[in-house]
């Protein structure tokens, strides 16, 4: 599974990566995936699976492209 840590969410990856290869195992919820990635719940504004918005309770499946984004301000 390809996981994107958008904006400042890549800060929470130890290596500050914005793309992480997540081993395909049993399906888990996006919330569970975020927790395992160490993303604080308060910093996730929205998530997309295969380029479509999804809910945190939705399942992430092997082969999915998952993108987490934080609240985004101006600039």
């Amino acid at each position: 599974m390809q996981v994107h840590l958008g904006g400042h969410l890549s800060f929470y990856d130890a290596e500050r990566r914005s793309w992480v290869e997540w081993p395909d195992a049993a399906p888990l919820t996006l919330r569970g995936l975020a927790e395992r990635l160490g993303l604080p719940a308060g910093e996730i504004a929205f998530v997309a699976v295969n380029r479509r918005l999804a809910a945190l309770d939705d399942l992430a499946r092997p082969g999915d492209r998952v993108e987490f984004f934080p609240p985004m301000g101006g600039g």
Partner: protein
Amino acid sequence: MIYGFTGKILYVDLTAGRLHTETIDETAYRLYPGGRALAAYLLLKHMPAGVDPLGPDNVLILANGLLTGAPFSTATRFTAAARSPLTGAYGESEAGGFWGPELKMAGWEAIVVTGQAATPVYLSIQDDRAELRDARHLWGREPEEAQAIIRDELGDKLTRILQIGLGGENLVRFAALTNELRHFNGRTGMGAVMGSKRLKAVAVRGSNRYLGIARDPQSIADLGKRLAKRVKQHPQSWDLQDKGTPGLTAGLNTAGILPTRNFHTGEFEGVDNLRWEAYEQEILTARRSCYACAVRCKREVTVNDRYQVSSEYGGPEYEAVAGFGSNCMVDDLQAVAKANELCNRYTLDAISTSSAIAFAMECFEHELIGPDETGGLELRFGNAEAMVRCVEMIARREHIGNLLAEGTRRAAEVIGDDAPYFAMQIKGQELPMHDPRGKVGLGLGYAVSETGADHLTAFHDPMVANPESLSFKGAIPLGVREALPPRDLSRKKVELYALLENWSSMERAVGLCYFGPTPRSFIAVDEVVDAVRAATGWDVTVEELLRIGERATNLARIFNVREGLSRADDTLPQRLFEPLESGALAGVAYPKDDFARALTELYEVKGWDPQTTMPTREKLAALGIEWAADLAG
């Protein structure tokens, strides 16, 4: 003894070629402590209503903030203000870089430029010495060249230079000012005002230090060290350093609010070619900064391929990536970088320029204009080469460029038919690249902003939508209590908007960059309060700082009422009240009925008349500016 500022204002009468100095006392300065607050005050004081924005009677103010030049991250900004040739309303734009801090080191809070020179001149300031110099040999020269010549003439390679390029000289109504070639007062056409005055540049060199004028220099220095360390430890500032504003592109596309095809939709098929990963791989060559700022959010790019893009003029910010990219349906980052470089080289505002081109593309596709007007260009969405060429045409006022240089509102009136509907502008100023259909509080800000549509006037709703987020928690000391969803336009959102508008207005008064303080970034509210205290010795509170912001906005509002603007000008383009065509927010429109109600509520919260929008006497008395009550007649 005063601290944190000198009170010195340089008056430059270009018609007479005379310069003189005045001072502002501490009582007045505490009400208008620089930047937009001081600029609005000076404009109301020195300029009658109804002047021609491009005539000698317009007054151009260049004003530092109280904290501009203080040696801590993001204290870099200065304001350029005048009656805007783009909107006819209050014009204002901030820039970072190095020029403002240098002016502070030279001992000046502001420069007030009046009149019009008979032939081009530039102003040279070295500490307290100032003189006008001949600039006839500089007129028509590109900023890089003009900068080198001026430095040579003054025998000082470190002189900081604020200047206009071709766009300003040709009176493009959205021309910008540039300092150090990479930092721009982009919005509202201040470059055209400078061009109309035949003032090519202002060169500044100062030998003082901010810490030498601060009440408590140690605290300021300590804050500088603390923030420099924190930049990499705080997610928001770390992100600004790592990706800068171009990091926004992919997320806004996913959220369905990346302006695409002149705001028809919020999702762009070609976004993968524009997103940060592509930017970093394809065009990025360095990260750069403003004076003493550890955030280093500025990008430098170089291209030697399909286009040649010089590294000297700074890389595209998010606004240019979306403006020349998705909004013109161009998925070629090199073309985007080239269009941006030309804007910077010719001192054109990249937001207005890209929006004017998207507007022209839509007119072309509807056959309201054709090859006869465009000089043979097939100016269609997605035509990267035509887009890049059109930037040149605007700067040089050739073919359709001559009309677009007047701004989309004027251009649309001339073209007629459906063209006014295609012009995405408010008060004459083109919309920034944030779609209010997904963040409705921002839409309120676009509508009421005295300068026309502006994305830095207030907050972006997602910043305060989650009570657990860093941004929300950061804003709590301002009085933010309840998190509200991005598409909520309740009375509570209106109140939240008014509060945060005062905060961002304050930032632009005291000289802080939008990417410094919370909720957008990493500097805490109490640190801003402490910085003002340490600079001046004043016993300020957060309430006083919010009032500074509110006062500045009220002065700008009175300026507009005086020019005949009213509630009817605080609106949104019709297209935003229509649904987005595709993407995550397909079918979603800006809520029209809620908008009218929210606007009325906002005037009430602000203490303004619901029709004229004039601040009430009580409001002005509460802000300590009763003197302004009779200005608007």
